[in-house]
């Protein structure tokens, strides 16, 4: 097991190294002089000179990368071009907000997705199943930003149940978290359903029934346990979609998190912030996927063996 984890972590480290090179080249890929891009058209030659030296832009690319990486490894991501504060400080202010939103969204979507999926899967080709399928098919086709707008319209403007601008309270988080989780809920429901239908055909299910176990015990003790593996995988894979969705949801609700920060830094051409945010997003994504792989290996010994 330890060997498997080490092997996977090694693979992830290589990917992260390549990702860091890609992100490093990020600012350098923008056509034109980065210093001028950062400072705008009206910058004085002295200011451009200063920025060029500050970022070591006159040094060879490899040296620049080493300098940048050294900073990144000790947590120094540079200063935001917009606020002149350390990038990490700005991110720290918003980080908790996005995490609260994402955790709440994952929580409700996995719970609801499992319930709908189990309900559909155990009533295959009956009306419960068709309702479940309809909900999940719709959930995957509706853009986050549109659900968000429609929810605000109904619950904040017409019914006045929730504040229009979400505050940090749980009450303010309900609509954004619902919006963000809708896609994940549909995906979890679909995978749970198909996985349960597969498991119901297995020999161990027949054995469990033949033993005279109650249907409820068969489903929850035998079928569900075995059908969770693909569901775990899909939750991990969907996490990335959710991080992207957070950008849209935060923008719709004006919720102050990393997604909104990303949009703001693009609008203000705050490249150091942008670079760090993209790095942080992909780091989260990759680490979550690693955790999912490990969890997968824990529940399914076959994976560990090869």
């Amino acid at each position: 097991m330890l060997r498997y984890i080490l092997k996977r972590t090694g693979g992830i480290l290589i990917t992260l190294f390549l990702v860091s090179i890609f992100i490093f080249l990020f600012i350098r890929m923008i056509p034109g002089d980065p210093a001028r891009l950062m400072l705008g058209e009206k910058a004085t030659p002295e200011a451009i000179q200063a920025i060029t030296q500050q970022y070591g832009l006159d040094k060879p690319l490899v040296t620049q990368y080493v300098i940048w990486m050294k900073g990144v490894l000790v947590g120094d991501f540079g200063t935001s071009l917009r606020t002149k504060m350390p990038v990490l400080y700005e991110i720290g202010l918003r980080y908790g907000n996005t995490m609260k939103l994402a955790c709440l969204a994952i929580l409700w979507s996995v719970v609801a997705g499992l319930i709908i999926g189990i309900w559909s899967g155990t009533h295959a080709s009956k009306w419960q199943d068709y309702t479940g399928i309809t909900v999940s098919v719709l959930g995957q086709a509706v853009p986050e930003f549109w659900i968000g707008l429609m929810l605000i319209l109904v619950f904040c403007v017409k019914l006045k149940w929730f504040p229009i601008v979400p505050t940090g309270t749980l009450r303010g988080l309900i609509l954004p978290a619902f919006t963000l989780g809708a896609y994940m809920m549909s995906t979890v429901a679909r995978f749970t359903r198909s996985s349960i239908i597969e498991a119901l055909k297995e020999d161990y299910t027949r054995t469990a029934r033949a033993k005279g176990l109650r249907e409820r015990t068969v489903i929850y003790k035998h079928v569900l346990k075995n059908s969770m593996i693909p569901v775990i995988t899909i939750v991990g894979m969907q996490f990335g979609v959710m991080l992207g969705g957070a950008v849209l949801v935060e923008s719709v609700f004006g919720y102050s998190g990393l997604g909104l920060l990303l949009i703001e830094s693009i609008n203000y051409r705050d490249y150091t912030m942008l670079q760090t945010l993209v790095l942080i997003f992909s780091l989260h994504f990759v680490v979550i996927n690693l955790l999912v792989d490990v969890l997968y290996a824990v529940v399914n010994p076959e994976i560990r063996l090869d």
Partner: protein
Amino acid sequence: MFKKKKEIIVTEEMDMNTRFSDFLRNFKKQKTAVAAAFVLLVLVVIAVVCYKVAPFGINEYNYAELLQGPSMKHWFGTDEFGRDIFSRVLCGTRISLSIGFFTVTVASIIGSVIGLFAGYYGGILDGIMMRVADVLYAFPGLILAIAIVAILGPGLTNVVIAVIIFCIPTYARLVRGTTMQLKNSVYVRAAKCIGASDMRILFKHILPGAIPSIIVQYSLSISGSIMTTASLSFLGMGAMAPTPEWGLMLSNSRTYFYTCWHYAFFPGMAIVITVLCFNLLGDGLRMALDPKLNDRA
């Protein structure tokens, strides 16, 4: 020797034909997918004729009728310049569908060629290509597209480039997998024995085997591409005013949204219907190509 070659080709062609008729028969059983295909056909027709049939011009300003609700004259109401939202949504179909088809077609061709070569030759080439795909995969969905647009600058052309880059790895991996499977199959080895060139093997013998999965992915990718384009436009990085792009219309509607629901409602519905149909079609195609999957949704 020549006779043998002919035989192989003939049996292969017969195989393809029977597979195609099987596929058609299975596809017809998927009622929702057939319905979705029909709706998509209607949408394509709309995309072609939209400028001719739209009751108003897309940029026909009418300051006497600002932000009016749906009526007999303006089915979907009017926007902040008194433009007819129905006409704009109709014409938005052309933008979304053409971007969807174009980006995914280009991405699937580039990705498939990369996958074919990587899977067939293996070695360093394969290693490099798959590493690049890994790196692109390490960026969560939309974030990659946003990052690319941030580098290239806003605008629909750059969105198209971003979406293409974003779709390529999916096809590269898909085709690479099939290629590695088919590389050692009997008919590919037979083709090699009779001296077929690598190019002929790749494009005449291996590629057809990958086509079914490419088609399924094609339909699903188009809905992803349309959604990404609309999302980027919504965030202000895609289409620029006064283009009648659905995402951009939704974005503009936010200012007026407390007083008029219709402005945000109809462009959103257009996105939902289009994406829904491509998803349903993709699911139906997948089930038709592999009937064993019938129970899986």
